[in-house]
């Protein structure tokens, strides 16, 4: 049976998943031209059913499970300026912020995930009397976004996060009068790029892979990469030179560092890793710093003393570290299994590597665990089409970490800036001048429609 005929039979098994493609898919494709006249493919859409994520790692001990449960609750804490507003008991919001709780942005398909369908930033902008203007790139059904400016006013490189909102006007921020940045002007000057939240599930496994394990995995499929124009390199800590692996540019060393930075940058809560306010206006400083500290007395009584005495950021990190990897559909359908073969054959797995293994772990049952993040956690040149012109550590403006694809079946928004909800468009956006993915996308374009569709079914099974 020819490949094409076999593929069509598989498509039949899929139950007619294929539908008419929106022409907009092709309008966004930069190159190459699709096979006009052939039936086209479509993103099956966000997979329904149970989240398949959000629970603890299998095999943890009782104390670790208690820590995870308590940490998950702390993760959902909502912050106000001084913790004095009912239902917003967390301390330290602002003076500038993007949202008021970790769980507000890390929500899809479960707490700890990524941007939800309804953008919580719309509501938080006006909460408690705040009178923020909604920036033009924030939409009720768009992705949660942070904004970074590419350049400073003097033309030097910026790259830092400029929070969307201020506490000015809030009932708990009397006397604070700082203003939001003029995002409309910055947009007009093409000086704003966006990032959406990355899911936190399974990050303890990622943290548990040794540097050598990552380097070996990168080298392991070098012959596949060499035929596809792909190389890759790791980002490194400027402090100790070890591999960094968290964030869109793999700029963060650990989940604790990730949590500490996000708490300060996204919510404005100073903490033991980032103890100083980013906004200097003294009229907007309402608390002693750091606002999040190790607790010297137990006021939580959660059932996990470790959680109770630990700071918020240690709890946030514990929640991420002890959370299980997203579970794919099991068993995969025949079409999805074929799609997995397409995924490996055309070269997706050259970067979205299939398997990694943890080293010896301090956590119960987490040593020598093989898992499938579908990422090599290396940086790759992604071309002008995806470039954000922001450098972080050793990553330049065109480089991004291979986004881990575990759980992608239940994500709504794709790519670092959440520019699309369409997997087909996300795949095609990997191709542009200067991208390491060009040959793989060329392979995708040459596939028979049924094989393309099987790939999409596989991805939505993850």
């Amino acid at each position: 049976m020819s490949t094409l005929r076999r593929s069509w039979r598989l498509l039949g098994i899929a139950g007619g998943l294929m539908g008419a493609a929106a022409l907009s898919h092709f309008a966004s494709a930069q190159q190459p031209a699709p096979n006009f006249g052939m039936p086209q493919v479509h993103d099956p859409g966000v997979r329904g059913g149970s989240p398949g994520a959000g629970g603890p790692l299998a095999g943890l001990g009782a104390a670790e499970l208690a820590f995870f449960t308590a940490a998950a609750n702390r993760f959902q804490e909502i912050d106000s300026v001084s913790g004095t507003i009912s239902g917003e008991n967390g301390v330290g919001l602002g003076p500038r912020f993007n949202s008021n709780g970790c769980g507000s942005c890390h929500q899809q398909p479960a707490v700890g995930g990524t941007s939800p369908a309804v953008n919580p930033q719309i509501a938080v902008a006006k909460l408690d009397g705040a009178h923020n203007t909604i920036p033009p790139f924030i939409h009720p059904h768009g992705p949660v976004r942070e904004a970074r400016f590419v350049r400073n006013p003097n033309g030097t490189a910026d790259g830092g996060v400029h929070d969307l909102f201020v506490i000015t006007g809030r009932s708990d921020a009397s006397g604070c009068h700082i203003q939001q940045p003029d995002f409309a002007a910055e947009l007009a000057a093409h000086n704003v790029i966006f990032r959406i939240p990355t899911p936190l599930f399974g990050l303890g496994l990622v943290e548990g892979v040794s540097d050598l394990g990552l380097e070996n995995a990168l080298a392991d499929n070098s012959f596949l990469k060499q035929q596809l124009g792909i190389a890759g390199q790791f980002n490194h800590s400027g402090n100790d030179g070890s591999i960094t692996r968290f964030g869109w540019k793999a700029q963060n060393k650990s989940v604790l560092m990730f949590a500490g930075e996000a708490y300060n940058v996204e919510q404005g809560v100073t903490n033991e890793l980032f103890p100083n306010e980013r906004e200097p206006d003294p009229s907007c400083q309402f608390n002693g710093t750091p606002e999040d500290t190790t607790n010297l007395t137990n006021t939580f009584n959660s059932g996990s003393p470790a959680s109770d005495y630990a700071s918020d950021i240690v709890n946030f990190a514990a929640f991420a570290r002890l959370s299980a990897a997203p579970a794919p559909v099991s068993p995969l359908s025949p079409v999805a299994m074929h799609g997995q073969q397409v995924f490996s054959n055309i070269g997706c797995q050259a970067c979205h590597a299939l398997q990694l293994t943890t080293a010896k772990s301090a956590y119960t049952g987490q040593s020598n665990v093989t898992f499938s993040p579908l990422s090599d956690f290396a940086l790759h040149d992604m071309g002008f089409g995806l470039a954000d012109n922001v450098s972080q550590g050793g990553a330049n403006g065109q480089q991004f970490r291979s986004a881990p694809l575990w759980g992608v079946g239940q994500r709504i928004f794709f790519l670092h800036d959440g520019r699309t909800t369409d997997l087909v468009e996300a795949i095609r956006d990997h191709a542009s001048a200067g991208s390491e993915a060009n040959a793989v996308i060329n392979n995708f374009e040459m596939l028979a429609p049924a094989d393309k569709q099987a790939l999409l079914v596989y991805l939505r099974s993850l």
Partner: protein
Amino acid sequence: MGWLLRTCACAGLIVVAAWHQGSASEPMPRPDGGVVANGIYANAYFGLRYAVPAGFRPGLAGPAPSQSGYYVLATLVPAKEFTGTILIAAQDLFFAAVPDDAMATARAMADAMARLPGMAIDRPPEPVTLAGHAFGRLDFSGVGLFRSTFVTAIRCHLVSFNLTANSRAGRAALVASLDGLVDAHVAGAPRAEPVCVKNRAGADELVRKVDPPARHPAFTKIPVRIVIGADGNVKDVHVIRASDEQRGVIERALGQWKFKPPAIDGHAAEIETGLTIEFRAGGTVAYSGGGR
């Protein structure tokens, strides 16, 4: 002491000036300097000319050379219906843990491809000669894509032609197009390029070394190829991948290096070799030989 320092500094300036003059007047070809013009892909560094198949055009530009010395030299795609692609690539053997023999590479590729579920090896690795070069050839296919890789070693690089089509006939046509590959070197004439030699930039070969000042980002391995003239002076510094700031300081510093006059088989020779530079925390600089 002050006189000595002034003299050394002055001598250094003269060397830098001389090096810059040399490189400005006769820029050396670089691996990624190939271009497509008038239906020919020509690469002066590797001395290759390839007649682009009829109906093909240059595709999207590839990424910048990698930290491991990997280059996408050219991508060729059909001007109309998208039925096949050609990717010409090179891997600098000074900076990657790969076999330095074409057939060994083809065999390793075959092993890697055979491990992919559903991938079939259509034609086991075999030696072929194209344009006077010994290539290893591998054909494989899966999910309706038919692929061939031809790989050969030139100037301590593995140069590969990676052909992909969505039909067997399409692949056969792309394979046939390699008959249009020629070595630009004139038969009988002496080769002008330097001899490539691994690990010849080490301390035991150095007469004078000037450290580049540290530049961001730290802990990033920077692959560098240098051409050492028969007199031991550095004639060319090719910083393969680095930030702009790093590139500038490395070019200036290494241009002042001087080596013992290199010799091959007892005869003075111009050579090219590689080394890896890494800026560490605290502004220190680490070198490694570029060997594997």
